[in-house]
């Protein structure tokens, strides 16, 4: 306030205001104004200018401006703060610590600066330096507890990080000693919790319990009682005091007698306690019946609770000796009969399917269904005067029954059964749509429609009909009908995304994905439904945008988490410190993050057009991409798979099994990442080879690395063909990619060009002692490369000959697969175009020589250019023909649907057929989207073809 009149402060304020308002251009101008007036003296204005330049996207100038600030040692708060923002936003958190180190040297007694330095170390997880800085703070202000406990926490985190003897023999005893020295001075709950954390790490659980019961417990707040109770049980468990633990668990259950997790813990701990007392259970063990009556007692005390009923089944599952299938059956039956009208009852019961017998008819899953069927309500019918609540209850019971029978029978139906069931479900669905729901609400009958969709999907899987679109289309028509009645049902949208992709229609899938508003944290669990499809849907600019968004999300995540880590220290929530550190690990090992980062680089490399050479360099070598041949191939170990495969609800356990093997799924992903990163390294290395040739006249330095890469390529493709990876294997689970990316890419031969491309550059300029007389390779050296491209092209031209018609083509009529092949073909065309450009780069020196000397090189270039151009044009022609087929179909679906009445049989029985309106709409969407995909790829090919025609390669820079 005092500075209001100070013109210098006023001018600085103008910069801050512009930055706050997001007007970075103005901020740059204001900063430059200050610098002119003050002859460049204001360090703060310089720092703010750097920040504004960064935010404006002028990165080089920003870096230059920042290094000007860095040259001056300062402890001026405003400068340090501006630079802190600069470093945070340029993802260089390490430089913040370095800057504050220098500032502290200037003012060693400043608590503020030391605190900032401490936080700077926190941001880069440097626990050791945190400890040293906190110790300095404690010496400056010995009366302030937080500083002291910061250093205890920092020691604890060092122990967590290093583990082993160093932790157990040195760091942990040190942390314990430090905490104990301050026992009498503890005055906050967080400090007690920190002390407990140290004791926990030392496995001194008796001491933990003693602390919870001792004088320090007075510092624990009333709202922590729940947490403390859980802690106490955790300590009992660790100490192996099984009986006490079981008692505590049962006690805990009485406060929430319908909490499933508590039931599970109770049963588990009681079994453990019993077994530790006197060996395994035997049949008719009195302890078992005691446990059962304990459950029954709670059931009697709280009639109408579902918990005790499921608990009996849980006991059987955990203790098979107590399980008699007929008892399980009758328990399941009574559970269903009691709770049928509540949602999610089918999934409650399906987890106990294994308790039923597959051999004894009287306790088989089919028997269970047979027994509960008579008790089901009739199919309800929505009518204006119907009791809506009763209707929803009846509907839910029927839905539960249908879901349960899908899960219990666990196998696909034959065609006749299936058609009848689809008709039944769809008619019931149509009869039970509720009027007057808000668009944000979901129709309760939607689950019937989704079950019918699953049946169509089953049919696609089993009838060896994977080559036919019919069943997928039928399912899509129904889903479209469902979505118009329930515009916010995400289950419907997820199914549609999957089916549209299977049918090679990116645009409608991506529109639905946007409608789902998948962003932020959802990218980790849901993003895969689309991110995995970018590579198979053609090289789409939309896909690139999507990958970029995801990559940015993860990049910013780290920064956000460490800011909260600072907060946790600042407010003394020490329990959250290790959790947040674990979260940084989780983020940096996220499969989705690595996948999107790699795919983004790969796609942008291929799409980057005329700037491709700079593109390779600009992307630099982010650590995980390891695009240079010298750096070791990244192993992609230890990734965490956050994909949520339960997004699409499925009840058949045989289909669910496909997602159960997490390690296999992760291994599949890893194989893909290795494949992609090898491809990326090769492309990047080709560029290096070309530049080396341009400067030295031949490939020498890069040659060994090139051969090594080629070797790796051979090994990878050898390991990826053969019986283990069938060409177009379709994963049965509706959430998994189909076919798996990698085999499909190999089948399409997209990697096959890389090895010949390496050979081509290795032989392009034969090494020679006399540089001027070095010859150029024979133009036929490009043949192997072109042959592999021709093979790919031929496969596509076969599709083309059939006009992409699903009815006649015997091979791969599924457009999703065609598109995948085309997409691979496009990738290859981009690679060819790159080879062409790099040839020009490599030969640039030769082409600048005297007319006579350069002639052979010119001839060579011309031949390469025309042959590559010819191939790209042929690929474009293939795409163009296919596009024409689909263009002709646009608008037809509507015409066909016009003037035709819905076929409705006697008594409104339409056999569950899809509505004409939905068929026309979906067909039209498919046509348009396919055209769009083909069109976009075609444009790309034309750009590449033009590049070779205009002879940019001949001498352009």
């Amino acid at each position, binding site marked *: 306030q005092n500075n209001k009149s100070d013109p210098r402060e006023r001018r600085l304020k103008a910069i801050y205001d512009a930055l706050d308002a997001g007007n970075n251009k103005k901020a740059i101008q204001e900063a430059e104004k200050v610098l002119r007036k003050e002859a460049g003296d204001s360090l703060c204005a310089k720092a703010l200018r750097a920040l504004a330049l960064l935010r404006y996207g002028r990165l080089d100038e920003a870096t230059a401006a920042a290094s000007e600030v860095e040259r001056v040692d300062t402890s001026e708060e405003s400068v340090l703060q501006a630079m802190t923002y600069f470093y945070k936003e340029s993802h260089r958190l390490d430089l913040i610590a370095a800057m504050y180190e220098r500032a502290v040297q200037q003012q060693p007694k400043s608590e503020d600066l030391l605190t900032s330095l401490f936080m700077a170390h926190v941001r880069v997880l440097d626990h050791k330096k945190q400890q040293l800085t906190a110790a300095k703070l404690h010496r400056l202000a010995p009366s302030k507890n937080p500083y002291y406990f910061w250093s205890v926490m920092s020691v604890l985190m060092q122990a967590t990080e290093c583990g082993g003897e160093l932790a157990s023999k040195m760091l942990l005893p040190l942390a314990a000693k430090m905490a104990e020295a301050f026992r009498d001075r503890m005055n906050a709950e967080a400090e007690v919790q920190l002390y407990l954390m140290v004791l*926990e790490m030392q496995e001194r659980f008796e001491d933990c319990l003693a602390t919870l019961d001792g004088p320090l417990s007075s510092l624990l707040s009333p709202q922590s*009682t729940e947490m403390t109770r859980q802690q106490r049980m955790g300590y009992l468990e660790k100490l192996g005091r099984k009986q006490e633990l079981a008692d505590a668990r049962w006690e805990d259950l009485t406060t929430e007698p319908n909490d499933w997790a508590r039931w599970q813990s109770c049963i588990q701990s009681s079994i453990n306690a019993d077994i530790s007392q006197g060996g395994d259970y035997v049949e008719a063990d009195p302890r078992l019946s005691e446990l059962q009556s304990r459950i029954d007692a709670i059931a009697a005390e709280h009639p109408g609770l579902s918990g005790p009923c499921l608990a009996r089944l849980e006991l059987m599952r955990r203790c098979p000796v107590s399980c008699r299938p007929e008892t399980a059956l009758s328990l399941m039956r009574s559970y269903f009969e009691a709770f049928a009208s509540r949602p999610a009852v089918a*999934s409650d019961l399906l987890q106990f399917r294994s308790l039923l017998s597959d051999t004894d008819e009287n306790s088989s899953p089919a028997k269970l269904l047979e027994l509960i069927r008579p008790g089901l309500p009739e199919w309800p019918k929505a009518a204006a005067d119907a009791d809506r609540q009763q209707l929803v209850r009846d509907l839910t019971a029927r839905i539960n029954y249908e879901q349960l029978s899908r899960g219990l029978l666990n196998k696909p139906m034959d065609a006749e059964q299936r058609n009848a069931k689809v008709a039944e479900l769809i008619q019931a669905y149509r009869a039970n749509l509720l009027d007057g729901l808000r668009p944000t609400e979901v129709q309760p009958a939607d689950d019937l429609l989704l079950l019918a969709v699953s049946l169509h999907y089953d049919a696609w899987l089993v009838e060896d009909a994977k080559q036919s679109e019919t069943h997928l289309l039928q399912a899509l028509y129904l889903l479209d009908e469902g979505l118009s009645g329930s515009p916010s049902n995400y289950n419907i949208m997820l199914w549609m995304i999957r089916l549209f992709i299977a049918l090679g229609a990116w645009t409608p899938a991506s529109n639905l994905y946007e409608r789902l*508003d998948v962003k932020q944290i959802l990218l980790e669990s849901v993003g895969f439904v689309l991110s995995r499809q970018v590579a198979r849907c053609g090289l789409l600019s939309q896909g690139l945008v999507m990958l970029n968004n995801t990559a940015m999300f993860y990049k910013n995540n780290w920064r956000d988490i460490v800011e909260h880590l600072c907060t946790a220290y600042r*407010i003394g929530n020490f329990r959250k410190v290790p959790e947040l550190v674990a979260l940084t690990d989780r983020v940096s090992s996220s499969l989705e993050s690595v996948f999107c980062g790699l795919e983004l680089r790969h796609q942008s490399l291929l799409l980057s057009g005329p700037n491709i050479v700079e593109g390779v360099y600009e992307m630099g070598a982010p650590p995980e991409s390891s695009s240079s041949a010298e750096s070791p191939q990244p192993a992609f170990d230890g990734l965490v798979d956050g994909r949520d495969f339960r997004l699409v609800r499925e009840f058949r356990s045989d289909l669910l099994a496909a997602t159960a093997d997490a390690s296999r799924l992760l291994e599949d992903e890893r194989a893909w990442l290795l494949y992609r990163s090898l491809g990326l390294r090769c492309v990047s290395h080709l560029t290096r080879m070309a530049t080396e040739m341009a400067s030295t006249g031949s490939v020498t330095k890069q040659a060994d690395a090139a051969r090594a890469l080629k070797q790796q390529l051979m090994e990878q493709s050898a390991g990826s063909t053969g019986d283990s990876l069938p060409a177009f294997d379709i994963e049965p689970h509706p959430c998994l990619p189909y076919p798996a990316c990698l085999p499909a890419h190999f089948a399409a031969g997209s990697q096959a060009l890389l090895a010949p491309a390496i050979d081509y550059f290795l032989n392009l300029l034969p090494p020679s002692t006399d540089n001027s007389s070095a010859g150029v390779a024979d133009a036929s050296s490009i043949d192997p490369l072109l042959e592999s491209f021709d093979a790919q092209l031929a496969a596509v031209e076969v599709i083309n000959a059939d006009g992409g018609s699903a009815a006649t083509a015997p091979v791969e009529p599924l457009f999703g697969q065609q598109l995948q092949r085309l997409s691979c073909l496009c990738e290859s065309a981009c690679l060819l175009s790159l080879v062409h450009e790099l040839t020009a780069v490599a030969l640039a020196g030769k082409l600048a020589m005297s007319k006579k000397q350069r002639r052979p090189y010119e001839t060579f270039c011309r031949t390469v250019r025309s042959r590559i151009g010819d191939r790209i044009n042929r690929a474009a022609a293939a795409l163009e023909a296919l596009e024409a087929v689909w263009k002709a179909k646009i608008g037809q679906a509507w015409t066909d649907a016009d003037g035709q009445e819905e076929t409705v049989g006697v008594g409104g029985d339409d056999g569950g057929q899809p509505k004409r309106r939905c068929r026309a709409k979906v067909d039209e969407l498919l046509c348009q989207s396919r055209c769009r995909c083909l069109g976009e790829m075609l444009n790309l090919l034309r750009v590449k073809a033009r590049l070779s025609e205009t002879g940019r390669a001949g001498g352009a820079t």
Partner: protein
Amino acid sequence: MVSFVIESILRVTNNVILYNIYILKIYHFRNMDPLTETYGLSFYLTYLVHWPEYFKIAESSDGRVMGYVMGKSEGYNEKWHGHVTALSVAPEFRRLGLAGKLMAGLEDVSEKKRAYFVDLFVRVSNDVAVALYKKLGYTVYRRVLEYYSGNSSPMFEQDEDAFDMRKSLSRDPERKSMIPLEKPVRPEDVD
């Protein structure tokens, strides 16, 4: 069947802390119904670091997140209160009484923190939620004009008012904090 996940304590094996990491459950949120906003990671972390006791998650018997509530406590003197920041139950787990359970947990924490009342904001058009809160004992304290700004979603193109709903706790036996205001207020006047 529902489990209410409580912040678990650490588990120690061979000197390595194995946390049963509550934080990571954030990634399991199924925020795809249109009335549930998906925030940046940072937003959830703010709540987890400052008010972990107010974060409650309900899980299904097969381990899916069915719903969650997050909130905070704030205000001075007789305005010291618990606030519901987000309450979400996935559509397929509605009608199980989850929302009531989650809210009860949040009210319980507010009681223990000696708050006078609990409050929340809800779209005036969201009559399902308004009815639910009324059933749980909340009343409309005031209307906040154009509290929700319109967004790109076709369902929420227009700005929309909010109801500020309140429920007194035992520290406010006369329910003073629930006496409705007669006139609506602007968002900037909400304290």
